Structure formats: structure tokens, C-alpha cells
């Protein structure tokens, strides 16, 4: 019974990720694509959590935290690139 529910949730997540993928391909601006990629990362975390229930294991829990950290850092790096044009400054107070 639980397996059927998890398969249904995985199918819904697949549809959501397809919608986000449409936004990544179609998105008029770069910011749309960055937001869509961030959402795909979050949906991927949900997929890993559902798979770890389905496979009845706890060894994927590190993957969940790791994906969330990587999605956050990647989004911050992209948005800093969009905002400043430079990702890592040498001295942000003086040579901006």
C-alpha cells in the first residue's frame, strides 16, 4: 500500500520536474532558469527521500543534506554572477 503511494508521489514529482525542465529550456531570462534549476534540485531531494523509504534504507540521508547544501551554494553563486558579473571578489569594499 505504502509502495503504491510512493510510486504515485514519484510520478507527481516527475511531472513537476518536467514542468521545471520546460522552464529551464524556455525561460525568457537567466533568472528564470536559475530558479527552475534550484527547484529541480529541491525536487531531487524529495526523490532521494522517497527512494530511501522505498528501498528501506537510511544510507541515503547524507545525500539529502549534501544535495541541499550544493543547491544553495550553486544558487548563491549564480545569483552573485547575475548581480555583480564576478563571483569571487578580491576585496569587495575597495576594488568594486
Amino acid at each position, binding site marked *: 500500500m505504502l509502495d503504491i503511494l510512493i510510486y504515485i508521489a514519484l510520478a507527481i514529482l516527475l511531472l513537476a520536474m518536467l514542468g521545471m525542465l520546460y522552464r529551464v529550456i524556455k525561460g525568457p531570462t537567466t533568472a528564470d532558469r536559475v530558479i527552475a534549476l534550484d527547484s529541480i534540485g529541491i525536487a531531487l531531494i524529495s526523490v532521494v527521500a522517497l527512494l530511501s523509504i522505498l528501498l528501506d534504507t537510511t544510507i541515503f540521508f547524507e545525500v539529502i543534506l549534501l544535495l541541499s547544501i550544493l543547491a544553495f551554494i550553486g544558487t548563491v553563486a549564480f545569483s552573485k554572477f547575475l548581480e555583480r558579473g564576478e563571483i569571487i571578489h578580491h576585496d569587495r569594499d575597495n576594488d*568594486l
Partner: protein
Amino acid sequence: MNRKNDQVNDVILQTAAVIIFFIIIMFSINLFFAGHYSPGGGFVGGLMTAAALVLLLLAFDSKTLANVLPFDYRIMTALGLVIAMLTSLHSIFWNRPFLTHAYDKFDLPLLGEQTLHTAIAFDLGVYLVVIGVTMTIIQTIGESE
């Protein structure tokens, strides 16, 4: 895109980055020590520590990071290689083949009886090398004008 005299204010990013930095560091230490019995180890732990440092680089700048954490990452890479080499070499002095590891039970204060294994010292070498190489690459690319 060079905006001169444009005051930037990243107070939300900087406040969040300081808090999240410690969470990522604790997670990387957990990954490093849990590597013997669960997923993780020196490689992923080192990459996560480098990710925490990259988050500080994103929120602040490389000069601030060099002031807060004055490490020379090339020396850190060399130190990791030396640690890995010494933990591999020590078995030669007990007439065992190269890279033979050993373990024993120790009575540690506060922690009680724990089993310590020389694989953790080898893993520490891997950890330092991964941090050093990743940060050297990112700083070398990031600081080019």
C-alpha cells in the same frame, strides 16, 4: 559589468552564510568520522569543507577569508600527502607490507573505550589534500583579472 560607486549591501547573505558555514563544517566533520561505518569519508568530507569555504568566499571576499583563516592551501596539500605517506610507511617498521593498517583499543577520557584505527590518519591525509587542491583551484581561477 563594473558598477563603480554602487554601494552593495549583502547583509542577509552574509548573516546566513556565517550560520550555514558552521552547519556545513559540522556536517563535513560528521562525514569524515563516519566514513568507516557509513557513507562518507575523507573525500566527501574534504569537499564539503571546501564548499563551506567557498560559501564564505561568495558572501565575503578572498582577502577577508585570508585574514580569518590564514592557511596556505598548497602547504595543506603537501601536509596531507606527508600524513598519508607516513601512515602508509609506519607498517614497514613492524615488518609488515607497505600500507598495512593496525588498530587497538584505547581508554580515552570522556569517550570511554574506543577502537582507534590508523585508517583514520590516512583519511585525514586525503581530507587535507582534497581541501587544499579544491581551494587552490578555486582561488587561482577566481582571482585572475
